[in-house]
């Protein structure tokens, strides 16, 4: 069981190292397959670990294995860090929560890496790409498998690093480099607040194991720790107010976007809250702030998505919005709901990105949806797979999102008056999801191909893409359709039971069957209403988009968050830096250097006179010096 955990973690790392050692000696295609194989081996390890935990849980329920509480196992390789009584081991945790994340990360991640083989074919630096992407998967696995908070933070930081490397993969594009830096800086902010939270924990409990989260802290301490963790989660999961890096991250190659949005990275915040739920339950206010952040983000992101024209950015905002749902789910205490939505979201979001990637690839890099009309005629496979993903995203039964989104919205009903606000946000978000998703769909796929599509479309040997690209899209198309059937709330909830030993749903987040059914009905009706509106505006053209210049400007400028951060952070620091250069660097730092050089030259000019080049002068100096020393001794005596 723990062997599976180690295999899962180390396989992608081994792949990265192999590719790096191989260098240019390794054929490009070999690098691609090493990365793919390593991630699929990791998936094998995850399955192994899953079967181990599953078997152990079975034994618990039979009562034959009472020593094992069904909460998984922590394995320590060696003591990594020791300082006095503070002791951190190189630990992995293999329990229901981490195995679920391992399966998602390595499974969906493996499909995405396989897809990259076709997508990145012919790029100049394929080997570097595959080394990075295997490293990205490794970092995320370290994050979800880390057996104590410090290991989790190490994975957290490495995920930030590898996302930086991959977003800026096309480093000759200034916009990509800017986007990479932005992502890194915003993530570093979250890393810092997490580190501060850990310092508080170390100061008061002298430990960073997951067990200390159950320890009783004073309410101020618990609030501060939870706030620090929430800062990290918000930064990594691109929630308001640290969301602005995510759309810019679309500068990376499309499979990287799929990986960031579906399998790795942005889901880390949800995992973190589920993993450290004990501390959040001690600081219930902060947990509700997390839920509120999610509710706000899902609305804001949905509104911005309405006016985006770049196919990848629409999907990016939909990710922000869906992560908002997950935050809402874990924030009110329904950890299993959030994790289940994380899983189905991984399926359909990876599917949407990779289908969009097929379109972008076939249209020679075009990403503007206004040029793509009628693409479905030439790319039927992409069209149907995208439709499956879109329906899953909106939550139309029987697609995956239907099963996972509704329990989240329903779970807000019993928590108090603010629950109704969350509920309204969730329902409004469902409407927006239907609208923006099918705006994208109706603009891109149905109808007669536009002149642009006719001119630029090129197939790949008679197919819509290389087989390495079509197979993952097909597999995820199936998963996005049936992947939600694993849990039919409230009738059959294996995932909730699976996670119950580690992250049990809070009683307030439990809802009655009536509430559940009613919410499902409302959500589906609202989602379909969104689809209908999109159809009326963008396909049948019976309605026109209302001309609301204020709102349009607000959405197109992404609620002015970028503008605001520019004014608050960038402009003052740039002003200070310019002032420092003018007042300090140029007159003081640079001038000191010149002065020192001049002084050295002058002194040298004086001393050089003694260097006559004549041997006898030197000997004379030597003899005179020696005589002087002897004389000095004699006098001293």
């Amino acid at each position, binding site marked *: 069981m723990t062997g599976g955990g180690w295999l899962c973690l180390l396989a992608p790392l081994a792949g990265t190292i192999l590719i790096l050692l191989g260098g240019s000696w390794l054929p490009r295609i070999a690098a691609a397959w090493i990365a793919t194989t390593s991630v699929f081996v990791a998936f094998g390890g995850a399955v192994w670990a899953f079967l181990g935990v599953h078997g152990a849980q079975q034994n618990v329920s039979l009562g034959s294995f009472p020593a094992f509480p069904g909460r998984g196992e922590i394995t320590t390789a060696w003591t990594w860090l020791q300082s006095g009584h503070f002791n951190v081991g190189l630990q992995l945790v293999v329990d229901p929560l981490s195995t679920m994340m391992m399966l998602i990360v390595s499974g969906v991640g493996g499909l995405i890496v396989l897809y990259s083989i076709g997508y990145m074919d012919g790029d100049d630096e394929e080997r570097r790409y595959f080394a990075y992407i295997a490293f990205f998967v490794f970092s995320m696995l370290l994050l979800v498998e880390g057996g104590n908070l410090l290991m989790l933070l190490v994975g957290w930081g490495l995920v930030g690093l590898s996302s930086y490397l991959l977003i800026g993969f096309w480093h000759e594009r200034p916009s990509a480099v800017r986007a990479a830096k932005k992502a890194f800086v915003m993530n570093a902010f979250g890393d810092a607040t997490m580190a501060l939270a850990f310092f508080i924990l170390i100061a008061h409990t002298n430990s960073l194991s997951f067990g200390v989260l159950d320890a009783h802290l004073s309410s101020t301490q618990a609030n501060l720790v939870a706030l620090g963790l929430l800062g990290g989660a918000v930064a990594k999961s691109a929630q308001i107010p640290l969301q602005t890096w995510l759309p810019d991250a679309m500068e990376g190659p499309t499979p990287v976007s799929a990986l960031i949005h579906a399998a790795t990275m942005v889901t880390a915040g949800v995992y973190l809250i589920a993993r450290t739920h004990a501390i959040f339950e001690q600081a219930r206010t902060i947990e509700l702030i997390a839920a509120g952040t999610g509710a706000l983000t899902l609305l804001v992101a949905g509104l911005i998505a309405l006016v985006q024209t770049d196919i990848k950015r629409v999907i990016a905002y939909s990710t922000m919005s869906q992560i908002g749902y997950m935050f809402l789910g874990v924030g009110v205490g329904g950890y299993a709901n959030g994790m289940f939505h994380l899983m189905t979201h991984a399926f359909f979001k990876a599917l949407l990105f990779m289908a969009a990637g097929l379109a972008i690839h076939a249209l020679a890099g075009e990403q503007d949806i206004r040029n793509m009309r009628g693409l479905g005629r030439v790319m039927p496979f992409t069209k149907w797979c995208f439709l499956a993903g879109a329906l899953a995203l909106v939550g139309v039964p029987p697609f995956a999102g239907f099963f996972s989104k509704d329990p989240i919205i329903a779970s807000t009903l019993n928590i108090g008056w603010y629950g109704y606000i969350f509920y309204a946000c969730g329902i409004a978000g469902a409407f927006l999801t239907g609208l923006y998703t099918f705006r994208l769909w109706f603009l891109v796929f149905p109808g007669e191909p536009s002149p642009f599509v006719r001119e630029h479309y090129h197939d790949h040997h008679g197919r819509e893409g290389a087989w390495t690209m079509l197979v993952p899209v097909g597999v995820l198309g199936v998963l996005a359709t049936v992947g939600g059937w694993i849990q039919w709330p409230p009738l059959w909830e294996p995932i909730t039971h699976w996670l119950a030993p580690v992250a049990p749903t809070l009683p307030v987040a439990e809802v009655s069957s009536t509430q559940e059914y009613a919410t499902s009905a409302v959500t589906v009706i609202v989602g379909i209403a969104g689809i209908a509106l999109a159809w009326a505006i963008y396909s049948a053209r019976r309605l026109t988009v209302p001309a609301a210049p204020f709102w349009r400007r607000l959405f197109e400028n992404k609620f002015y968050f970028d503008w605001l951060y520019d004014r608050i952070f960038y402009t003052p620091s740039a002003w200070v830096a310019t002032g420092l250069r003018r007042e300090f660097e140029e007159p003081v730092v640079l001038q000191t250097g010149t002065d020192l050089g001049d002084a050295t030259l002058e002194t040298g000019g004086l001393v050089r006179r003694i260097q006559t080049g004549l041997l006898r002068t030197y*000997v004379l100096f030597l003899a005179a010096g020696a005589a002087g020393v002897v004389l000095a001794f004699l006098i001293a005596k």
Partner: protein
Amino acid sequence: MLGPDVAWYLAVAAVLFGIGALGVLIRRNTLIVLLSLELMLNSGNLALIALSRHWHNGAGQIFALAVMAVAASEVCVGLGLVVALNRRQLSLDVDTLSELRG
């Protein structure tokens, strides 16, 4: 103890050292300069051994051996330079070899 007093030895050594030093300062031929240097080193040896005997202490003799090793190395380098100068058909006059002036 046989032989003259230690002062005599030291006097001879001082005279030898003076001759060597004068040779280094005055002569212009590189070979003679090297020769004079050897003279100075050996005057030092003479003084060391004389005093070693005077004080009944072997350290001075060991010092003299070390000085011989240094002298041998110095001759290697010095003669090597002379040969190199000769190969390049340069003058052996030390006063003309003054390119390294500041």
